[in-house]
């Protein structure tokens, strides 16, 4: 990436290693993991707190993905958290299957005859699906015993679903609010389907006991939680690097071009639909990965996790953090989800007004909704805007932060 012919290297062409936000992010993540590891070794932080941090990093990863697709490409997806959930389901299937298999094999080993594969399968079926009144093993679970395949599914299934959905939507030029609502409808459809008992994924029971990692039964949760913290941090760091690299250079230019003026990019000869599809699919896969890391730490995944509101919260995080900048998404997800745990977990002190006591467990969502409205109205740059103040960057004129026009009215005002 030579820039010798130019006097000043523009922001986007600077090598990744020289970009402040990349350095800060890597250092931040490294510091966090090392410090938390040390504190945990000393017993100063609880396992649940380590897990909370690990989960938060996974949410940051999902937010990063959404920022790529929304903040940079201008596709407001209201369904990316569904891909996160699918990743969780895919890995959860293996976790549950393998662990059940171990338990079943241990109990069958007590009998006189050595267990046959048929017996083991039958027992697993009863164990896992008894709760939805069947012992038949659904076809979805055909490869549940294979970690590599289920890991691949955690990424490929979201990719496939996003690919099909995106191909259908983008080729018919569905954009703007239409696309947003379609993604929401798709998410609703998926969650409703999962709620059924005969979906093959245990209906509203979801998959549980995921914190128990097969083969690691002797390792205490305090250690596993640290491993997952590291894994989440590494995944986030690598994804951040990858995302930074993706949005730099001509590819990033094209994405931002699509966000700001899709038609113009088309007339430059770029197949906008292919780019959109690539980003939509790629970020869906990233969300799948994030989910696959998140749910072993959360321990349970159920259809409620996939409900449309979850995807909306993801959007809220990115909006509050500041879309169109990668660190904004990460900061937003971290700050808002941690604040949410603090407020709803009873950590925040009640406010006594004399005539009424504000209990934050009740009023946190009101506060969140209000801040979201205020951010949208008055601070579209979100928390990331604070960085601009700090770096004394001159306030730009109103930035294009996304396609302001939906496809409905957009066409007539675009040239």
């Amino acid at each position, binding site marked *: *990436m*030579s*820039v010798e*012919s*130019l*006097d*000043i290297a*523009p922001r*986007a*062409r600077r090598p990744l290693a020289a970009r402040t936000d990349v350095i800060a992010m890597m250092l931040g993540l490294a510091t966090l993991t090392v410090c938390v590891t040390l504190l945990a070794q000393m017993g100063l932080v609880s396992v649940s707190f380590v897990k909370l941090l690990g989960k938060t990093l996974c949410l940051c990863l999902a937010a990063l993905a959404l920022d790529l697709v929304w903040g940079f490409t201008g596709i407001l997806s209201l369904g990316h958290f569904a891909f996160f959930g699918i990743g969780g389901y895919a890995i959860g299937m293996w976790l549950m299957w393998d662990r059940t298999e171990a338990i079943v094999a241990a109990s069958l080993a007590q009998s006189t005859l050595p267990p046959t594969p048929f017996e083991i399968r039958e027992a697993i079926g009863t164990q896992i699906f008894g709760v939805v009144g069947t012992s038949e093993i659904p076809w979805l679970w055909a490869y549940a015993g294979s970690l590599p395949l289920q890991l691949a599914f955690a990424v490929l299934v979201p990719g496939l679903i996003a690919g099909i959905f995106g191909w259908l939507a983008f080729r018919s030029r569905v954009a703007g609010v239409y696309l947003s609502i379609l993604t929401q409808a798709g998410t609703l459809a998926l969650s409703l389907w999962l709620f059924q008992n005969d979906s093959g994924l245990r209906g509203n029971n979801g998959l549980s006991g995921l914190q128990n990692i097969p083969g690691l039964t002797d390792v205490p949760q305090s250690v596993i939680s640290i491993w997952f913290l590291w894994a989440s941090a590494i995944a986030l760091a690598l994804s951040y690097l990858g995302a930074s690299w*993706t949005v730099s*250079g*001509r*590819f990033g*230019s*094209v994405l*931002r*071009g699509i966000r*700001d*003026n899709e*038609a*113009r*990019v*088309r*007339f*430059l*000869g*770029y*197949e*906008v639909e*292919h*780019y959109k599809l*690539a980003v939509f699919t790629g970020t869906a896969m990233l969300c799948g990965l994030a989910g696959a890391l998140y749910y072993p730490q959360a321990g349970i995944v159920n259809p409620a996790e996939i409900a449309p509101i979850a995807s909306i919260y993801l959007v809220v995080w990115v909006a509050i953090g500041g879309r169109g900048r990668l660190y904004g998404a990460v900061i937003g997800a971290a700050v808002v989800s941690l604040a949410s745990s603090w407020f709803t977990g009873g950590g925040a002190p009640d406010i006594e007004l004399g005539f009424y006591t504000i209990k934050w467990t009740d009023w946190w969502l009101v506060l969140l909704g209000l801040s979201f409205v205020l951010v949208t109205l008055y601070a579209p740059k979100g928390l990331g805007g604070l960085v601009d103040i700090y770096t004394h960057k001159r306030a*730009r*004129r109103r*930035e*294009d932060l996304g396609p302001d026009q939906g496809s409905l009215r957009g066409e007539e005002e675009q*040239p």
Partner: protein
Amino acid sequence: MSALLEVSGVTKSFDGFKAIDNLSLSVNEPELRAIIGPNGAGKTTFMDLVTGKTRPDSGTIRYGELSRDLTAMSEAQIARAGIGRKFQKPTVFEDQTVLENLTMALAAPRNPLNVLLRRPDRSARAAAVAEEVGLEKDLNKRAGILSHGQKQWLEIGMLLAQEPRLLLVDEPAAGMTTAERERTTAMLVEAAKTRAVVVIEHDMEFVRRLKCRVTVLHEGRSLAEGSLDHVCADPRVIDVYLGRPEEADA
């Protein structure tokens, strides 16, 4: 000189209103052509049709040696085939630098995988184009802070960077100062030496300066074609521009 663009018998109507009515037209390579006509003559629709933004109801638009049918191609395919379009309102990516704008436009593979993975340094080529349109000092400025004229030039620069064979330019001189107009004229005349350039304009003075063949559009039809002096002498053109007596009070 062979016909690069061959429009024959094209009709396009919107809810019964015929924006283009059985229009036939051909443009050679190289050639500088001006299309003039009053408001509602179908100039912009003509450009939309050629660049694939709208599809004709009937008729064919053929392009290049292979006579490819443009009506069956997507906007991006048409652009990659070598047809560049400049919009009436300057349309550049205001949030990105001049360099980024030009780099995006440079002729290079455009499929996502290639763009993502292969990243040769093309800044020298972009700088060269910037010099052609007089923006060599502003490479790292955000396009949003350029003046109106500079934006127009940046857009022309982006067109040139695409290395098109056919350039469609919609009212390039709108809102420019006299000096800027002269510079724009020079750029277009220069570009037309090696390629086909179609300028859509209703400013007669600007067209006169281009010194080229002129097609007059009216109500979606080609009314007259020839040198500016020739078409200006055509009574039908005079009617259209000055209005027939019975339409004068309307």
